[in-house]
């Protein structure tokens, strides 16, 4: 009942200065709209840029480093056990690139609860033969289905059909840059030379564009069995196992665990791509800073308008106090005014922000380096709407706090006597 009275007085004062009130509310609306849009856009962009590398990167990658064995034969000999041995020019043994017992490891990984999926991979160094020029290149032998499911392989195939890679024997999807240099189109046969000197002929079934030119000039994709054939290896031959986790933050710990358990090298995504995380967090920080600045400016607007209102309504405040309204009541009246401006303006701001995001999401955005992106990226995250709502209430409360306190301290005697 008592609050109803205060609310009704606030309402009357608000509507008495409708224009000013609207200006104040529009200030809040504008800043919340921009806050939401900015953050959604920025995080959409972050996702896009991160996705450029991170989506295609395994959370944990298992591989075998080529290095000499720590234990040389002489170390195992009983006879020279107590001697100091010097062996110079030690070389790693052949075949170390292969992950031993790979199918057992894959099975174990697939059974692991933390793992979303596992994709095996073979890296093969080759030369693309163009007339009498050899271009260096890398052919990745991949499991087409898993690679698409886990690392969005399909999205980066710009010509041809990605599934042909699986269905056509001896087929290859060439990097766009490499294909341009080789002047080859879909359906052409190209020839590659392996590092061992074997020549293999492959049919081009598509083009691959990652958006990073240096990669596109070098990398091509083939199915696992094709890659094994190129290298002349048995079908258990795997050089990399890519693991995608349910929670990417677990990667460092999990990588360490796998390294011990499977006796292979394991690198986690955070270690491999630490620079991306830094970039994202700084971009996010900047957008928050701009958003909060906008809100503070809107807060000053509200502060000004309330201050003006209080000067104008000095008489009314004095008479309210003379007829029995306490300072606290007067305070509550002006806080209510400020909060209603904030809540009304903020709610509109959230709506407009959502609308503006929708509009931006439909603006065409074509860039040759990002083949899968057709419009500006936007991320819809309820978190930003929550933050926007909370911030709009907090800033308007603070903006209302000082003028309200001033109003509550007005001495009715001075006003009434002044007339």
């Amino acid at each position: 009942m008592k609050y109803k009275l205060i609310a009704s007085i606030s309402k009357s004062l608000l509507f008495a200065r409708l224009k000013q009130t609207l200006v104040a509310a529009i200030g809040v609306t504008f800043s919340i709209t921009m806050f939401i849009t900015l953050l959604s856009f920025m995080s959409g962009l972050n996702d896009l840029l991160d996705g450029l590398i991170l989506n295609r990167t395994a959370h944990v990658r298992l591989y075998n480093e080529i290095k000499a064995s720590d234990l040389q034969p002489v170390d195992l000999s009983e006879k020279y056990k107590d001697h100091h041995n010097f062996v110079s020019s030690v070389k790693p043994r052949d075949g170390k690139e292969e992950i031993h017992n790979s199918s057992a490891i894959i099975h174990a990984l697939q059974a692991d609860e933390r793992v979303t999926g596992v994709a095996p991979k073979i890296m093969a160094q080759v030369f693309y033969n163009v007339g009498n020029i050899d271009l260096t290149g890398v052919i990745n032998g991949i499991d087409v289905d898993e690679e698409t499911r886990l690392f969005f392989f399909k999205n980066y195939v710009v010509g041809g059909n990605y599934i042909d890679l699986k269905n056509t024997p001896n087929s290859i999807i060439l990097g766009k840059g490499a294909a341009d240099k080789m002047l080859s189109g879909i359906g052409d046969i190209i020839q590659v030379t392996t590092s061992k000197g074997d020549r293999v002929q492959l049919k081009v079934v598509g083009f691959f564009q990652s958006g990073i030119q240096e990669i596109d000039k070098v990398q091509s994709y083939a199915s696992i069995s094709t890659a094994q054939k190129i290298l002349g290896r048995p079908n258990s031959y795997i050089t990399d196992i890519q693991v995608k986790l349910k929670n990417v933050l677990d990667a460092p710990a999990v990588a360490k665990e796998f390294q011990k358990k499977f006796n292979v090298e394991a690198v986690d995504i955070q270690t491999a791509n630490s620079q991306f995380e830094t970039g994202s967090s700084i971009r996010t920080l900047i957008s928050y800073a701009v958003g909060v600045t906008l809100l503070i400016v809107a807060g000053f607007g509200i502060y000004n308008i309330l201050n003006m209102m209080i000067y104008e309504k000095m008489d009314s405040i004095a008479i309210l106090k003379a007829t029995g309204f306490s300072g606290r009541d007067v305070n509550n009246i002006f806080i209510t005014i400020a909060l209603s401006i904030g809540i009304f303006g903020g709610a509109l701001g959230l709506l407009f922000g959502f609308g503006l995001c929708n509009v931006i999401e439909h603006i065409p955005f074509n860039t040759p380096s990002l083949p899968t992106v057709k419009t500006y990226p936007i991320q819809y995250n309820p978190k930003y709407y929550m933050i926007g709502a909370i911030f709009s209430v907090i800033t308007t409360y603070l903006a209302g706090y000082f003028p309200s306190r001033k109003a509550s301290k007005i001495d009715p005697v001075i006003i009434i006597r002044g007339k």
Partner: protein
Amino acid sequence: MSNKILIAKDICKSFHDPITVQVLNNISFSIDKGEFISVIGKSGCGKSTLLYILSTMDTDYQGDLYIDGVIMRNKKEKELASVRNEKIGFVFQFHYLLNEFSVIKNVMLPGLKLNKYSEKEVEHRAYEKLKVLGIENEALKMPNQLSGGQKQRVAIARALINDPLIIMGDEPTGNLDKKNSEIVFNIFKELAEQFHQTLLIVTHDNEFAARTNRIIEMQDGQIIKM
């Protein structure tokens, strides 16, 4: 004691800026229930200052003030506000109606604040008060649509809404012409005689004062006749 609505004991007040000037000097008097009192004196004799102290709005004074037998010293701002709300009705020289509210709402506001009756009842009571003052037809108008005399009558209705112990007036006819002054005076008179309303009116209009029950005359911060 029970009949004494308001007792002032040795009330003194000084202004300290820029030099100390004593405005009120040992003011002591009491008001009985149903009295119609006027306070007169020359401009600057401290009569308005006294009124604001008696009304609890000014708390910077020495001496003791009892309203309805309760001492006002050391009361919190909020408690004083509720004393004003419940026990004192004000009529000022200027009407101080809130332009954002209709006449009836203006009258109702102190009643709603008191929160003793439901909103419906407060509205009903406000109509009654307006009827007593003969302006019930203006109830739904906005204050700026009324004449000066009508506005002052609305202000009186607002002072009456909580059935206060005492109505205090600071030159309530000061801004009105002869005819409207007469109307306002007659209203006060009627309130005093018919409803036994206690009234304390500060005025410089000697003619007005002469027709009240009791006159307190002030000079240089002291009561010289009462």
